[in-house]
């Protein structure tokens, strides 16, 4: 589209103008792309690569004096990587993280959708107040959340609910930290939704439940999936609150806590190895959710 618009004047203008315009376009594309990829590289890709490199025990021999990593002689310690991720405790921790995160993200996707619904469709006193509550998990350092949970749901619980050192404690903490994601991804879609689409379904004879099932829920699938992916990734990465409420025992050691424990013993490669696996899982779920949401969305978006 952009090409055709830009090239239309080519018929009427003299060649140098066209060439300089084309050049400018190429330059601007290259600069924009270059800036973006440089920024992304420094902020995201570099640490990711470094994590994986550390995980597989990659160590460069730079005696050749070249600045280019491709010229270096690389040694790796792959067996240590295998050992690190093959340890039963590591697997236990990773598995615990994954299923707890899946569970918390699922529950929050449903609850988040309901909260978003109430915030958008209902009008009641104190709505604005409740609305601002939703973002508190974003604002509160999770270590603080951990302290609060230990007080609230710990051995000295004022409500007599002791979740200390239990998976339920971890679960409640994960529910807390991942709540905002699905609310905040679904809410704008609900706000932008054309109410006449629901009205149309009603005039065609649909019951309220049928309207929900056939009209409202399908249009929330993509934001819900996006929210699910983000919430899952957030849960897998959570450390502060669950390291506290888990109590430091083996049974409740999640992947992030396990990694922390390794670093306390200066086992850097092991820590990076488990991190690599964690990273892999998160990226898979995130891209899976995004891809699925996009494939559901593409042709249907107006």
């Amino acid at each position, binding site marked *: 589209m952009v090409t055709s618009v830009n090239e239309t004047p080519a018929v009427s203008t003299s060649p140098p103008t066209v060439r300089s315009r084309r050049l400018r376009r190429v330059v601007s594309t290259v600069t924009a792309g270059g800036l973006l990829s440089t920024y992304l590289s420094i902020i995201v890709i570099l640490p990711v690569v470094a994590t994986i490199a550390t995980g597989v025990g990659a160590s460069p021999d730079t005696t050749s004096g070249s600045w280019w990593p491709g010229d270096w002689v690389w040694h790796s310690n792959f067996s240590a990587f295998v050992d690190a991720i093959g340890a039963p405790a590591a697997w236990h921790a990773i598995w615990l993280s994954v299923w707890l995160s899946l569970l918390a993200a699922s529950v929050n996707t449903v609850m988040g959708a309901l909260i978003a619904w109430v915030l958008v469709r209902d009008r009641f006193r104190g709505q604005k107040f409740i609305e601002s509550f939703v973002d508190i998990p974003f604002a509160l350092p999770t270590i603080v959340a951990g302290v609060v949970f230990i007080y609230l749901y710990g051995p000295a619980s004022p409500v007599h609910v002791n979740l200390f050192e239990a998976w339920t404690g971890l679960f409640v903490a994960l529910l807390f930290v991942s709540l905002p994601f699905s609310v905040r991804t679904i809410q704008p879609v609900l706000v932008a939704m*054309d109410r*006449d*689409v629901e*009205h*149309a*379904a*009603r*005039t*065609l*004879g*649909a*019951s309220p439940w*049928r309207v929900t099932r*056939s*009209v409202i829920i*399908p*249009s929330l699938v993509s934001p819900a999936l996006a929210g699910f992916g983000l919430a899952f990734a957030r849960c897998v990465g959570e450390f502060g609150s669950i390291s506290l409420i888990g109590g430091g025992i083996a049974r409740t050691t999640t992947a992030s806590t396990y990694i922390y424990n390794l670093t306390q013993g200066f086992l850097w490669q092991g820590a990076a190895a488990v991190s690599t696996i964690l990273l892999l899982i998160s990226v898979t779920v995130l891209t899976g959710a995004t891809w699925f949401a996009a494939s*559901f969305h593409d*042709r*249907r*978006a*107006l």
Partner: protein
Amino acid sequence: MPIQLSNLSKNYGQGAVVADVNLEIPSGELTALLGPSGSGKTTVLKMIGGIEKPTTGRIVIEGRDVTDVDARYRDIGYCFQAYAPFRHMSVAKNVGFGLSVRGTAKKEIRQRVGELLELVRLSDKANRYPAQLSGGERQRMALARALAIEPQVLLLDEPFGALDAVVRSELRSWLKELHQRLHVTTILVTHDQEEAMDLAETLVVMHQGRIEQVGRPLEVYDQPVNSFVQSFLGPTTLFDGVTIRPHDLVVSPSGPDVVTNIDDLGFEIRIAVTRASGEQTWVQLSRPEFLDTKIASGDAVSVSRR
């Protein structure tokens, strides 16, 4: 089915958006609700369709008071101003939605949808999604979807509002033909007087939530009850202090009046004249008429009634 609106009002908190509307809509006819933007046309339609509750008043369809009946039990086909397609459903699923809600057998739905798509000339687009349709096609899909439930009443809210002039007039004549074939009681909302004059058997002119005039289109055009209706239905000008239609005036060469400007719009020519009395008026001529008079800007002419 005849529709009776009695003392219908809608209040959204501040003032009345629809105020005390009394109207009898004849059975099997096409009635046009005509009025400027914000005059309450959509609101009236939504109350008939059961989407908005009237603040006061009753709605009776074929002797049945439906004022408190839920939209889904009213048996009304409603085409919304922005088409309101189900965007995650294919065209065929959209059209068949009303039938599938009613629990019609799959085979019968397929057959009915096939017929309807043929009727609205979308048979080759059955498996597309609304996003892949043009505006005119989306409108026809919405119409087929509303017709699928074999409604006793069809409500069309500016069905051609967002379309370009060519598609508009094409769809207009198609709708006219369709109405003559099906004879469903239809209410069409529009702010385009030409569209209303062309399609409607009964014309209802609305202004600021009230009905100004009801009647046959030509009747309303020729005998407007007030200057609002008169100017809304077509251009007006002053002649001897009286408001009349500029096509009811003629110019002839030589006389006390002076041509100040000529706007040539193709078929239509608008001639601005300053009269001897100082009155500013203008005359609307067709191209052949204009060519016969042979007048030019600055000429001395005389203006008279036909």
